[in-house]
């Protein structure tokens, strides 16, 4: 039987949710949606039915959140609760029915992103954990990890800085670049903490798309076959995180992975 992190929502039957719940996590601009676009057809070719879902896509709350964010008047508690509403709507109306029907559910971010954002904005970690404690425990969480130095060129030369992704609500006195660096650095620290707490599979997202896709495919294959992941990803998680941190220091703007960064 499936488990939640603590409370069970009314009328939520946790038996016979035979599908697989796979989470792709990571900061803004790390390439999550690109990977999901590749993973979906790959899974379908193998005969798996796939539901892909992600933050702010609920029928109930997506439009409301968008409108509220455009106004830039959202308080941090309000913002967190609006997103939690969106998540609950998708959990009950999309994710659980799909799992019951035996789908592979690929979710672009999960409660971890929502909690990281809230904690970075100064909310009580115990409070935000409780808010999301009705979430289902996923079968696996793949955390696409990238250092801020590698992230900057990707963001600058694709979508540009976004008000919320730059944490401008937090550091309004700074320019977008400074604010982006501070905000994303704080987010990364939260993700690294959660990687251990929630047993994420950490994937270095700095190599090219194909290499990351390869790692994800191997990891997901094991989840679908019900194999343990330990033999594949050598070393305990803390070591992995440390190695990654070291590589972040050496990988700077001097050797960008994004071709556009040199110009």
């Amino acid at each position, binding site marked *: 039987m499936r488990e939640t992190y603590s409370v069970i929502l*009314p009328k939520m039957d946790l038996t016979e949710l035979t599908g697989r719940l796979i989470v792709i996590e990571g900061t803004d601009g790390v390439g999550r949606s690109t990977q999901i676009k590749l993973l979906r057809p790959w899974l379908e070719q193998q005969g798996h039915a796939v539901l892909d879902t992600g933050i702010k896509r609920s*029928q109930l*709350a997506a439009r409301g959140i968008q409108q*509220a964010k455009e106004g830039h008047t959202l308080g941090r508690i309000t913002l967190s*609760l609006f997103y*939690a509403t969106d998540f609950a*709507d998708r959990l009950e109306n999309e994710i659980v029915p799909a799992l019951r029907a035996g789908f592979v559910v690929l979710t672009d971010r999960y409660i971890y992103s929502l909690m990281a954002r809230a904690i970075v904005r100064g909310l009580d970690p115990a409070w935000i954990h409780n*808010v999301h404690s009705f979430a289902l425990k996923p079968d696996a969480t793949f955390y696409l990890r990238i250092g801020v130095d590698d992230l900057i060129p990707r963001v600058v030369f694709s979508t540009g800085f976004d008000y919320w992704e730059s944490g401008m609500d937090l550091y309004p006195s700074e320019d977008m670049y400074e604010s982006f660096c501070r905000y994303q650095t704080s987010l990364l620290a939260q993700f690294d903490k959660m990687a251990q707490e929630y047993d994420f599979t950490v994937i270095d997202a700095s190599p090219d798309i194909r290499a990351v896709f390869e790692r994800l495919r191997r990891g997901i294959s094991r989840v679908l076959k019900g194999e343990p992941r330990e033999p594949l990803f050598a070393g305990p998680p803390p070591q992995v995180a440390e190695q990654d941190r070291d590589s972040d220091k050496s990988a700077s703007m001097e050797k960008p992975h994004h071709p556009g960064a040199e110009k």
Partner: protein
Amino acid sequence: MKRYGEHRFPGKLFVVEGIDGSGKSTQLMLLHQWLQAEGYGVVFSEWNSSPLVRDTTRRGKKKQMLTPATFSLLHATDFADRMEHNIIPLLKAGAVVLCDRYIYTAFARDVVRGMDRKWVRELYGFAVKPTAAFYFRVPLEVAMKRILEGRNGVKFYEAGMDLGLHEDPEQSFHIFQGKILEEYESMIAEFDLTSVDATLPIEEQQTQMRQIVKAKLTQAKRLRVAP
């Protein structure tokens, strides 16, 4: 982040609670008039009134898309917006804030809808504790008579129709309000609510309420805001 607790702001927060038909809104309106006449800076805040969340709530209710979980979270979102942008700044400014329904409404309704009692209480952990919370205590039958005489038909969620308690909306409303009443009763001691006998004449209830409010306002500054 502040957990539910005593606020240290100069303002005062008075809230009214009770089932539909308990007469709490009438009492709050009378209190409002009096406080204004006394020269206090008074502001009224109503449950479920945040402009930010309004469209989503309206759509969810109209299309009957809300489950106990999303009903609960959406109302918490609405409350958070009013707390962050309205109630706390006003209390900081020294205003007397009056709320028609507060977190206890959510505790009662959400628990009756099957949400975890402890989870809901923690969900509203960011709320400030009212200076006084008046609970208008009324027998179910009295409240039902007041409500059902005065209007034609109760709305879907108001009647708790989402819970499948009864096919007839009036019957469902009756059962639902009865359950909510039980939740309120158990909260009197838990949250130290000030009970007012809502079967008494309106004037008498108001006198009681004003006495209690007056005692709590001894240190409050009068803002002399023109009514």
